[in-house]
């Protein structure tokens, strides 16, 4: 069974178009993420959601709009695509813990297979 799935795997589109990438996790995790990996393999967080609530928005252009209909899904909609949006987009999920001392402790993150977006 696939833990974190993304569709589509490849997306080729023209500049100016609007596109969506879907992500689903069947792990029962509370937190989901979107990352962008550029051509130099640098992986940068874009958004994180915890129980359908936006937690992190990492100064991403407002052309990018995440939507979480339930805690198992986090979709990414991109308006007015630009050449610089070409990259691999990864969805991930995790079950994060708060320790008894009040500090936050990360567990491992489970990544989807990625969506390679090419803007022409």
């Amino acid at each position, binding site marked *: 069974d696939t833990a974190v799935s993304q569709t589509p795997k490849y997306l080729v589109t023209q500049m100016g178009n609007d596109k969506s990438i879907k992500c689903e996790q069947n792990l029962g995790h509370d937190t989901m993420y979107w990352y962008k990996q550029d051509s130099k*393999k640098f992986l*940068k967080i874009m958004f994180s959601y915890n129980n359908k609530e936006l937690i*992190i928005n990492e100064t991403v252009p407002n052309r990018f709009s995440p939507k979480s209909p339930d805690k198992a899904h986090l979709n990414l909609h991109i308006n007015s695509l630009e050449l610089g949006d070409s990259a691999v987009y990864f969805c*991930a999920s995790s079950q*994060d813990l708060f320790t008894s001392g009040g500090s*936050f402790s990360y567990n491992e*993150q*489970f*990544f989807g*297979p990625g969506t390679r977006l090419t803007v022409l």
Partner: protein
Amino acid sequence: SQQGEEDPQALSIQEGENATMNCSYKTSINNLQWYRQNSGRGLVHLILIRSNEREKHSGRLRVTLDTSKKSSSLLITASRAADTASYFCATDAGEWGAQKLVFGQGTRLTINP
């Protein structure tokens, strides 16, 4: 700015040899994680080491953490062709309630048969 930076950026060794990759970071952390990414695939978690731990083992993997030097190393012993991949360290960052993992740029490891 990047929190974790891996060194070297690329490493090529013969099968059976040991591979060592290093990661340096800038701010204090709660834990540090190592991930592997095979070509064209998503990242896979390898090991997590907490700030109060100095060393951790998992099969052929050995991770060390030196919080005084803000550095970590990943050792893969008896390397195999299947270990060819990019390896990333990730550290936690951000404020309480809005924590995130910050990834380095990775070390590309090639195991030659």
